């Protein structure tokens, strides 16, 4: 760690001398900055995607996990008796905090969005719903299903797992995609910086030859290039991250749409995450240039 810190320090102050030995490189420097900016811009979105889907997965898992439903489908004259029987079973089941049969009005309210307000719901053979709220321990779904099957033939227990699982799976898959994107972006940045560094090394072959001749060590020569590319990538990283963060700030608010989507944006401390992007860009450039430079230098006498 100390060695790493001293390298960082050398990058900043130790080698102004090594900085000046390589001539300024004009517009190709701007291309490096642009590349780093573009990649950082994309990286911020990939991070936003990961964070948002993580939040979404938590949200879905949390909302759906604590509640379950028992549905009673029985001939009209037995519904009331079976509902009572099911409630008795539920009350004696460990892990059930609350079990409550829906009133007819509540069931109607649930159906209104689908059938419209004018449908005479009471005339239809609609199953009775019982809302089950689990307590902290959670309940043993398999055991409950068996007991209900034995005592209440018309009862079907639904713990929403079947809804939850694909949603949570989709959300975590999206999160993985976001993380993979970040890795790919970092890799592409490293590749582009390596190409730029190699062409800079080739363009300055004569200077490298002179430096070698007068007794400069490889690390001195490499540092001249590493320093440049690290600062360019960092500057580009700042530019890209700032622009992407501004873009996220001005995303339309999805809360009012009342939906499912929690929005591709940051919440709370997440807003600090884009700060890491320029440092990541700088570090990638540092590592890529150092590797490229030392490798090229090793091939020279």
């Amino acid at each position, binding site marked *: 760690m100390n060695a790493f810190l001293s390298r960082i320090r050398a990058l900043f102050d130790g080698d102004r001398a090594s900085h*000046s030995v390589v001539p300024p490189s004009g517009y190709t420097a701007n291309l490096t900055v642009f590349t780093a900016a573009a990649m950082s811009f994309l990286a911020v979105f990939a991070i936003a995607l990961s964070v948002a889907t993580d939040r979404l997965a938590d949200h879905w898992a949390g909302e759906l996990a604590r509640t379950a439903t028992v549905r009673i489908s029985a001939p009209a004259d037995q519904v009331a008796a079976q509902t009572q029987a099911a409630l008795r079973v539920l009350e004696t089941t460990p892990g059930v905090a609350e079990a409550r049969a829906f009133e007819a009005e509540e069931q109607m309210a649930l159906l209104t969005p689908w059938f419209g307000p004018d449908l005479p719901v009471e005339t239809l053979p609609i199953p009775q719903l019982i809302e089950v709220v689990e307590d902290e321990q959670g309940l043993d779904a398999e055991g409950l299903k068996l007991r209900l099957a034995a005592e209440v033939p018309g009862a079907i227990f639904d713990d929403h797992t079947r809804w939850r699982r694909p949603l949570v799976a989709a959300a975590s898959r999206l999160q993985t995609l976001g993380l993979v994107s970040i890795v790919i972006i970092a890799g592409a940045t490293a590749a582009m910086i390596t190409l730029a560094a190699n062409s800079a090394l080739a363009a300055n072959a004569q200077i490298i030859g002179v430096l070698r001749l007068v*007794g400069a060590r490889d690390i001195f020569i490499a540092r001249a290039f590493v320093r440049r590319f690290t600062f360019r990538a960092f500057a580009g990283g700042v530019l890209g991250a700032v622009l992407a963060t501004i873009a996220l700030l001005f995303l339309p608010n999805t809360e009012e749409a009342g939906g499912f989507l929690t929005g591709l944006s940051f919440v709370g401390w997440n807003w600090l995450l884009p700060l890491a992007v320029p440092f990541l860009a700088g570090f990638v450039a540092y590592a890529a240039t150092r590797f490229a430079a030392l490798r090229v230098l090793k091939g020279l006498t």
Partner: protein
Amino acid sequence: MIELKNAAYNYGGRDLLSGLSLKLSPGSFHFLTGPSGAGKTTFLKLCYMELQATAGQVNVFGKDVTTLSRDEIAKTRSRIGVVHQECKFLDHLPLTANVCLPLTATGREVNPDDLRDLLAWVGLDGHADSLPPQLSGGERQRAALARAVIMAPDIILADEPTGNVDWEMSQRLLRLLVELNKMGKTIMIATHDLNLIRAAKNQVNSRVLRISNHKLQLAGADL
């Protein structure tokens, strides 16, 4: 200082140089001569470790060159000053920065008084801020010599230092190299200019090496 033991350099399947044996002792003054393309530059490159012998052994300051790491070679080179035929500089930096390059590249301080004295010694005190492309051939040669000696090296190797300059200037460069030799430096000058070798005979006790037929021979004292 530099010792070659039966060293050879093989290029493209044939020996360019072979059976080289030589021991450069401290404070000696050698000329290296021979026809163009005989391998004078290659011989010097073996001495300053830009090339490695393909056979035999080269020892620099008592160490076998093949055992040195890249950083050790860099460190050893700071004890050897090299003046090239085609002087290479960093064209975007002024003369002073170029002359000081061996110091800055190895993290050493530049003493402004020493630098001023050095530039005066090679007669470039009026050109401190000139860029290398603005200098004439003779000025470039003298700048290269100043750069070669700024680290106070033990050995100075010069490859055709008078190749691009007139007789007057070559005499001046020779005097500078003779002065360095009198200060105890080991000097080796590759040249095909026999007049220069003759002129040196009056000033310094020099020996002449000759490369011909891929071999290194000690030429007669009566050149």
